[in-house]
């Protein structure tokens, strides 16, 4: 019987590490010494980027939480939740963060003396789960906690996905047999084994799930040997891991196509390519460093005469986005890296021209021909018009 595929090769014995931390805390308390919990600082100012590595990695900064009147609540909640999670690992049960929030509520209900620990809303319990992961430097998934599947709807005529299930059986999905129905990768995509029926030329990640679906309906995947993925906004861990799996297992070029604006570049494309500052310890598995930015590029705006919207300092939302673009140019190690100079140039272009252009604007080019957007995208890939 084949073992189920795991997320990553890790020799971490999570229950053992957790017990060691708790034991140390208890020892400190016995000696009337303040226990300190240390976790990796997951923020932009502790993010490092090396283009050879390809994703954001944590620096040396740690967040230390010492026991005192202000932190006693958080420490008690951390240890309480750690107990729940360790129990899940022991029994093999998996849960979403929302479910864990309700489980915590259930424990509080069953034992009145836990009442002070009760969580008022999910944000509070999420923060504790995140803290535990940062403290143990493990993935949330390794604590048997999974997010809802979101985004990543995939279409292809050639791709076949195989999953080894815990009961030893095998599930195989031939995407070519699904028609225009997408395949939805789960939030643990690394467990899939991918193979292709014939050669696949490229993988195209589209920011808007709707546009991806339109292209497929109009026959994009019939005419081109490719994989089409809808990102559905900021890519979730699942989408990031899935594109990474495609990139690593199939070794095909991957492209991202989305809006030409600061938000897409920083929050969507950068997160897909190099991960996020909030999940520094897991970017190695949840980012796809080889993805190229296909557009919309400033040169496309000119070449295809695409419609742009003005971005005004007077509009609060626009002003925030402009401010963020300036901040990012100054502080984000990803955009400061020499290899990504062309991406930084696009941000500078956006700041200078104060416009934004949506991905759907290519539908304005020769609207009588429904395959025009497809032609533009393929032409761009063919002529190397990407960054």
């Amino acid at each position, binding site marked *: 019987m084949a073992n189920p595929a795991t997320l990553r090769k890790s020799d971490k014995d999570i229950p053992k590490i957790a017990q060691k931390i708790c034991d140390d805390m208890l020892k*400190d308390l*016995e000696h*009337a010494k303040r226990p300190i919990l240390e976790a990796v600082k997951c923020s932009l100012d502790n993010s490092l980027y090396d283009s050879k590595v390809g994703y954001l990695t944590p620096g040396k900064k740690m967040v230390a*939480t010492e026991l005192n*009147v202000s932190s006693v*609540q*958080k420490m008690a909640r951390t*240890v309480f939740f750690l107990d729940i999670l360790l129990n899940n690992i022991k029994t093999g049960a998996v849960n979403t963060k929302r479910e864990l929030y309700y489980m915590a509520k259930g424990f509080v209900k069953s034992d009145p003396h836990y009442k002070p620990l009760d969580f008022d809303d999910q944000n509070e319990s999420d923060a504790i789960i995140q803290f535990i992961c940062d403290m143990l430097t493990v993935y949330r998934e390794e604590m048997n906690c999974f997010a809802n599947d979101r985004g990543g709807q995939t279409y292809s005529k050639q791709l076949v996905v195989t999953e080894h299930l815990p009961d030893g059986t095998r599930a195989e999905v031939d995407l070519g047999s699904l028609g225009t129905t997408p395949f939805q990768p789960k939030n643990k995509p690394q467990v899939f084994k991918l193979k292709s029926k014939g050669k696949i030329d490229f993988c195209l990640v589209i920011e808007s799930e709707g546009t991806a679906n339109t292209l497929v309906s109009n026959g994009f995947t019939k005419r081109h040997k490719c994989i089409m993925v809808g990102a559905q906004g900021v890519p979730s861990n699942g989408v990031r891991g899935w594109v990474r799996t495609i990139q690593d297992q199939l070794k095909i070029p991957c492209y991202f196509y989305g809006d030409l604006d600061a938000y897409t570049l920083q929050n969507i494309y950068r997160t897909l390519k190099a991960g996020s500052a909030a*999940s520094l310890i897991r970017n190695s598995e949840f980012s796809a460093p080889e993805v190229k930015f296909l557009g919309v590029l400033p040169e496309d705006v000119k070449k295809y005469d695409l419609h742009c919207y003005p971005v005004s300092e007077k509009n609060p939302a626009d002003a925030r986005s402009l401010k963020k673009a300036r901040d990012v140019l100054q502080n984000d190690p990803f955009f400061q890296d020499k290899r990504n100079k062309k991406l930084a140039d696009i941000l500078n272009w956006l700041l200078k021209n104060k416009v934004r252009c949506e991905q759907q604007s290519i539908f304005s080019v020769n609207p009588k021909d429904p395959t025009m957007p497809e032609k533009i995208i393929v032409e761009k890939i063919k002529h190397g018009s990407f960054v």
Partner: protein
Amino acid sequence: MASKITQHSTAEYFAKNLQQVGFSSPVKAVLTTLKESVDNSLDACEEAGILPELEVVVRRLGNGSAKNTELVEVIVDDNGPGIDADDLASVFGEYLSSSKFGRGRCSRGQQGIGISAATTWAQLTNAAGVKVTSKTKAMRKAVKAQIDVDIKANKGLVKNKETIDWDRPHGTRVQFCIDGRVQLNGDGGILTYLEGTTLVNPHLTLKYKLLDNEAVEVKRVSDAVPEVPPPTLPHPHTMKLGEFMTHAHLFGKVTLDNFLRKGFSRVADEAIKGFVQHGMPKSFLHKALTTVSEAEFKTAFQAIQSTELQNPSTRSVMIVGEEALSKSIQRLGEVDFFSVVARKPRICDFKPVAVEVAIARFIKKPNLSDEAEQIQLLRFANRVPLQFDKAACAITQAVESVNWRAYGLQQSKDSLPLGPYVFAISVVSPFIKFKNASKETIDASDELVEEIRRALMQAGQKLSRHIKREVRAADLERKLQHIEKFGPILVEALGKIVNAPKARVKRAEDGLAKLLGRDSRDAEKELAEAETQLEKVKAKQKGTSSDDGEGGGEEVAIEAASASDEAPIGADERRGQLEMEFKVEEPEEV
């Protein structure tokens, strides 16, 4: 066919348009009548240097002549200088007959419309004007008469005049019987008006009996009659060309040079030189005013407007003062906290203006809003409460423009803050620009709103120090509770994960108690130290100040509270930093 053009008297105009001067509804009619009478009494007392003692009676006599109205009697009795028998007719029965019109003084009344309008209202609704009893020091007996307005001629008519014995050396008593309706509380209420008047007149002793309620006496808290500063000459930049020319006619045959120097403030050699530089021909200066043509007036006026002049003097502005306000505010109810700010007079729109602000939180005060309702805003212009048309007023706009959340109060965007507070804001100026003749709102110029805003922010800072201290005490309480709640759970959960024996858990519990006990003891100590420091400063202030009423003490307490704030900051900041570090984690996107 052209219609016939007729002439009407001022009285006729006002008799037809009483709504413009505050008689637009039965409720307002009663309030305006009372207000005009009280204003006149207070102004007269101040002029004569007398400490005012007023007695106000408002009662219902039956149904009014108009539908849905009551017949209301308003009596105001003062110890002022009294009015000569010969002047009674013009004071109460003639419009625009005033001793104060356009003089540039900070008196309550300005134009001589209000009291005549009240007489007209009485006459129109009850067929009898005002009944006046008055006695000056020089009179052996008091004179009593009914004054009506001859509306066609704008003249006062004296009726039923008699002389009587009166039990006082001087004073005036007016009695109006009018159609109206009595409202005591709320923005337009009589009680609100009387409270406001007492607040900004610390030297006033006021007795009042309203309807069937018990009589109330509010004693004065200051024995100083406010000195009304002498009037100032107008500043040339506040005038329009027409006014400038009219002003010139008052001076007769003098030269233009002489007129400019004597008729205006801030015009001397330097200014005259400036006028010439800015295009006023030198020859004009020596011309007699009577020979100056309209075109020449215009040239001169234009030169004056383009010359930079010193700002007008602020000496003509009077203020109530922080100390007097502090004492006065405590007459309104039991005060828990207050802060008072009296700004120095400033120039706004070329006119001297003084702004004073008092913010108080009351423990006990009838009809005061609770936490969820807006604060009670008392507005004053030249020490007269403004009670209607709140939204358009410069004062309201200034209050709404301040971000009170920064000072610890709740507030929705661009509206009045919430809570059981009274905000009293007084604007004093010899030239207040009202939006209407009934003097209900101050015109909101940018400069004036900004000046009021600054005063409010100063008061807000004092308030915020106090609120912060309260919050800190509550915070400590919360933290101490935290220890009791979370400590045992933490140890228990740790013991469970490690599978520790009971003895070990017990040792850890003891250790935790020691640790957290240390923390709470430290925090309590810090708070106690702050309290002692506060007491010390209070005691010290009491020792040094001989004239230290309750108000002075409270004022010191506010400042002292802020000084003692410094003590616990070190520890709190440390905690704050740790908490900050806790919060740096970015939220997960998924």
